[in-house]
C-alpha cells in the first residue's frame, strides 16, 4: 500500500530532516511510527502526503508515485495533522461538505458517513457551529471525520489521539481496526507507546532523522518487557 524508498528530506539551510528512510506498509497494517520530539516523524508524514517536497527517494502509494501522480495518490489517502488547523470561518458541516465535494463523495455517501461518524464522535449537534468555537478535541474529531469521508485506502495520522477524550480514543481505535480489516492500511505517529503496542501489528522507530528499527511488533519487542523498554533502549543508545 505504501512504499517509502530511500527518502531524504532536509530543510534548506539546516541539517534537520530525515535521511535514508525505507519502509513498507501493507494492506491490513496498523503501522505505528514512534520517535522522540524533533526526530523527524512529522517531516516524513508531510513528505509522504505531498505537503513537503523531498530531496531524494520515492513514495509509492497503491502503486502510484506521489511525485508523478499527486492528485491520484491524494484521492487514495487521507491525512490527519498533529494540530487540527482547519478553516475556522466554516461551520463543521460546511467543512465536511467542502472536503466531500473535493473528493467527489456523492450526496448519499456523505450523508451516511457524516451521520455515522459524527454520531459516533457525538458532534452532530455542533456541526452547525463555526469551527472557531470548537475545542481542540472537537476540531480533532472533525478532522478525523473529514479524513474518513472518502473511505481512503491509506490513513496517515500525526498524533491522532492528542486531545481526544477516552471514549473518542476508543472509537478511533475501533475505526482503525475496522478499516484495516476491510483491506485498508494505517500509518500513524504516536507518543502513546501502550496504545501502539496493543493496537499495531508493525512499528518503526526513528531517531535523529534515521530509521533505527522497523518491522512486526512481535519481532521488534521480542522477549523484551514492552515497546516502551525497546524505545528507551533505542533512543538512549
Amino acid at each position, binding site marked *: 500500500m505504501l512504499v517509502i524508498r530511500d527518502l531524504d528530506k532536509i530543510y*534548506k*539551510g539546516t541539517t534537520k530532516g530525515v535521511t535514508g528512510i525505507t519502509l513498507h506498509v501493507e494492506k491490513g497494517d496498523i503501522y505505528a511510527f514512534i520517535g522522540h520530539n524533533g526526530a523527524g516523524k512529522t517531516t516524513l508524514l508531510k513528505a509522504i502526503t505531498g*505537503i513537503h517536497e523531498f530531496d531524494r527517494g520515492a513514495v509509492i502509494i497503491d502503486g502510484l508515485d506521489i511525485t508523478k501522480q499527486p492528485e491520484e495518490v*491524494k484521492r487514495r489517502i487521507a491525512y490527519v495533522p498533529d494540530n487540527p488547523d482547519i478553516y475556522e470561518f*466554516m461551520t463543521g458541516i460546511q467543512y465536511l461538505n467542502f472536503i466531500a465535494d473535493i473528493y467527489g463523495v456523492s450526496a448519499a455517501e456523505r450523508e451516511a458517513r457524516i451521520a455515522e461518524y459524527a454520531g459516533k464522535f457525538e458532534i452532530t449537534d455542533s456541526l*452547525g*457551529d463555526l469551527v472557531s468555537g470548537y475545542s481542540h478535541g472537537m476540531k480533532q474529531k472533525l478532522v478525523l471525520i473529514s479524513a474518513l469521508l472518502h473511505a481512503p485506502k491509506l490513513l496517515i495520522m500525526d498524533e491522532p489521539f492528542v486531545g481526544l477524550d477516552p471514549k473518542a480514543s476508543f472509537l478511533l481505535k475501533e475505526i482503525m481496526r475496522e478499516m484495516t480489516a476491510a483491506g485498508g492500511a494505517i500509518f500513524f505517529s504516536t507518543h502513546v507507546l501502550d496504545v501502539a503496542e496493543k493496537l499495531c501489528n508493525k512499528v518503526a522507530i526513528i531517531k535523529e532523522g534515521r530509521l533505527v528499527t522497523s518491522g512486526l511488533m512481535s519481532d521488534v519487542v521480542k522477549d523484551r518487557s514492552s515497546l516502551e523498554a525497546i524505545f528507551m533502549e533505542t533512543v538512549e543508545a
Partner: protein
Amino acid sequence: MSTFVAVFKAEMLNFLGLNVYRHTKDPSERKRRKILYIVFFILFLVAVAYLAGSAYAFHLYGIERVIPMLYPCLAMVISLFVEILLSRGNLYRAGDRELLSSMPVKSTPVAAARLAKMYIRGVIISAVVLIPTFLIYGLAVHAGVLFWIMIVPEILVLPLLPVALAAWVGIAVSALIARTRHKVLVEVLVAVIVVVGMLALSMYFSGGRGVSVNLTGLTQSEDGGKLSRKEMNDRVAEQAVAAIERIETKMPFVKTWASFFNGEKPVGILLIAALGLAVFALTALVIGRNLFVISAKLTPQALHRDYKLTELRSRSVTEALVRKEAGRYFSSGLYVSNTIIGPVIAVAISIALAFVDIEKLLGSNVKLPFAMHPTSFLPFLLAAVFSMMTLTAVSISAEGKTWWITKTLPVSVGDIINAKILFNILVFAPFYVLSEIILLFTVRTTVLQRLWILIVPLVYLVFATVWGMCTNLRFPKFRWETEAEVVKQSASVALGMLALVFAILPGVGALMLPELFGNLLTAATVVAVVVAAVLLYRRIQSADLLRLGA
C-alpha cells in the same frame, strides 16, 4: 510596571518582523524579508526626497514660513491614518488574549504597552516628516539654537494625539462590532462610509471653496504673450504668497500653530505635550479596563449545538473551491473592507459624475495651460481603482495555518489558482457592471470613448487579478499573528498595488495627448495589458505550490 515592560518588549521584539529575519533558518523566508526591507528602504528614501524637495520648493518661492505650519500637521495626519488602519489589529487582537488572560497580569499595562508600540511607530513617522523638512527650513531662515533644540521634543510630542485619537476610533468601531452578530458586515460598512465620506468631503472642499489658482495666468502675459521662465517663477511666488496670506488672515490659529514649531513660541510644544499625554493616559486607562472584554466579544461566541443533519448536496470541485474562497473572504472584515474599497470608489465616481463635471472631479478648479482630455483619463481612473487591491494578492497568504489542507487536496494547481482568480472576478464584477450602467447615464461622450470606458477597466480588472496572484505566489506569508500582516503589510500586497501604477501612467498620457494619440495609446495599452495577463496566467498555471510554505 514590570508587566508593561515585559509586554512592551514582547510587542517590540518583532517590530517590522526583524526578530523573525534575525532568527529564521529558512533561506527563502530570509530572502523574502530582505526584499521587503529593501522596498521599505527605497520607499523611505523616496519619501525623504519628496518631503525635502517640497520643502525646498517652498523656500524657492519665498514661502518657507509654511514649513513649520504644514509638516507637523502632515506628520499628525499620516500617524492618525496609519494608526486608525492598524489600531484594531494591534489593540484588540484575539491571538494572544487567552494566553494573556491566563497570566497574572492586569489588562491596563497590556493596553499601555500596545499603545506604546503604536506611539513608537508615530515617532518614526514624525521623524521621517520633520527631520528633512525642518532641516531645509532651519538652513533657509538661519534658525536660532532654540529651533534646532526643539526638533527632538517636537518629534516625540506629535504622535501622542493622533495615536490616542486612532485608539478611540478603534474603541468606537470595536464596540459597535462587538454588539452585533453581523460583525464583518458592520466592519465593512464602517470602512466604506469612512472612505466614501472622505472622498465626498474632499470633493466638497475642492468644489470652489479652496484657494483657486489660475495656471494659464502663470504662463501667459496679460496681452497673451509667453512669459520668460523667471517671470513665470515670480508669478508663481506672488500667487503662493498671496494664497498663504489669505489662509493666515482667514485662519489666525494657523500662524499660532506655526509659531510653536518655528522657535518663536516653543512653550506651545509643552501645551501640545501636556494635552497629548493627558489624552494618551486617559486612553490607556479606558482601553486597559476593557481590553480583554472587547477582545473576547470580537471573537466567536459560544456554540449553539442545535444542528440537525439534513439532506446534503454534492458540488463540482470548482464550485467547492470557490465557495471555500468565499467563506474565507467574507469571514474577515479586514480582508473585505480593504479590497472592496476600490470597487466602491469606482461606483462612487460613476455616481459623482451625475453631479460634477469630469473636469471638476479630476482637476477641481485649476485652469490648465494646455488642453487636457479628462474623458480619456476616466477609463484609466476606473481601471486604477479596480486594480488598487485585489483579493488574489492575499488569498494564498490568507490560508495561513490551513495551507496543509489545500496541499493535500486531490486537485490540480490550476484548480486552486483558477478558483482564487474566479472568486476575485466574481466579487468585483457586480461593482464593474453597476459602475458601467451608471456611467451610461452620467457621462456623455463619443462611441469610442464609451468603448474605452467599458473595456479598459475590465482588462485591468483581469490583469490585476492575475498580477495579484503572481505576487502572492512569489511572496506568500503563511506565518502571521494578525490578518493585518497579510492584508495590509505583506510584500505581495505592496507589489500587487503596482497594477494601479500600471493603469495611472498610460492614463496620464491619454489625459495630456491630443485625442487621436490618446485613443492610439489607449488601444496599445489594452493590447499590452491583455497580452501581459495571458502570459502571466499561463505562467502561474504551472506554479510549484508544494514549494510554498514547505
